[in-house]
């Protein structure tokens, strides 16, 4: 194999991969309330936008208060218009810090998980 052939193979592989815009493992792209944010007023729900579509049966999100008590309405679901958005409704929240815990399965069978906090201001 000549160096030229080798470099052409590299260029071809790079060209195949470059159009990709998101991680194949589903990573959290955006969250509402935002990661580490302070919220004024009552958030009605948590919305998590991932980098790729999710498998609904194996994707979960919970919202916990500082004592570990679940404060969401246990109605997690994918957004009907966008399978990369996971939503869950919230009960009325007292001022304090809340933790969002998620574990999702992307369409290509990779599991990712994570958590973050947001604060509800008085």
């Amino acid at each position: 194999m000549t160096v030229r052939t080798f470099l052409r193979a590299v260029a071809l592989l790079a060209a195949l991969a470059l159009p990709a815009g998101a991680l194949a493992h589903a990573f959290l792209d955006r969250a509402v309330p935002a990661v580490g944010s302070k919220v004024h007023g009552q958030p009605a729900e948590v919305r998590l936008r991932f980098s790729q579509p999710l498998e609904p049966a194996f994707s979960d999100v919970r919202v916990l208060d500082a004592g570990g008590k679940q404060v969401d309405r246990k109605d997690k679901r994918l957004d009907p218009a966008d399978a990369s958005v996971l939503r869950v409704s919230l009960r009325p929240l007292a001022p304090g810090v809340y933790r969002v815990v998620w574990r999702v399965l992307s369409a290509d069978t990779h599991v990712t998980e994570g958590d973050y906090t947001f604060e509800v201001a008085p």
Partner: protein
Amino acid sequence: MTRISAIARWSAAVLLAAGSASAFAHGFAGKRFFPATLATDDPFVADELSLPTVSRRKTGANGDEPATLETETSVDFTKRITQNFGVGLGATYVSQKPDGGESVRGFDNFAANVKYQFFKSDEHETILSVGVDWDIGNTGAKRIIGTETFSTLTPTVFAGKGFGDLPDSLPYLKPLAITGSVGVGLPTKSSTTTVADDGTETTAKNPNVLNVGFALEYSLLYLQSFVKDVGLSEPFNRLIPLVEVSMQKPLDGSGPTTGTINPGLLWAGRYMQFGLEAIIPMNKATGGKTGVLLQIHFFLDDLFPKSLGKPIFD
């Protein structure tokens, strides 16, 4: 059949035999994504292809050897046999241009390795593994300086630790992670005798060599997803600034510690990762000038999640 085509065919056979799927794959411990590092080996077992890794640096003059501009282009392929056990193969094409001399080109010795990941803690974002690297003697071009006629086996311990378990009072340190390795290169011949054109024999000792490497990384992906949304958008939310340090020291005291410090940036995409680093000599004994190192790295488990990118045995 050339050695390269033999390796390629063996690799293809392994890939075609690939078996069932896995949930987590390259470089994950809990919510921590460990990127593939360029100068030091990773602590995790994965289906990956680095194609290519290119380094270019002018080495310093050493005794009778003049300063040499050295360009290395390498390919590294690793394949999981089971979820936690993998094998790897590597080949490097070298171009050397000594000051005032003719360029020489050819393959360095080929390399193979095995690695077993024996511990993972999702909660503490920790991975530990052990492995052995085999630099296969006499498989490279003899005209290349540094291509040995003997093999070197390097048993190595690898570790990776993310700092996501730090107290919440230190939020901006949580995106930090460190990976590293410690190994001892054991040559299969304790000395090598060369005969010059005039018949003079020279014998050089081949000492055991301590190899230490680590990478300190700050993941903007981790910051943005788990600590604080600071408003970064693509491509900046996928950047991982890092510093790698790679050191070697002969254990018989016959030479000084040498090595490089490599500051750089990684960018992790859907199927691949780009890396770019400077190669800075860490001391006078290392010599030479600052060079550059770049890599295109493919996540085979993401490219072929249901076929080529999963362990042969689950």
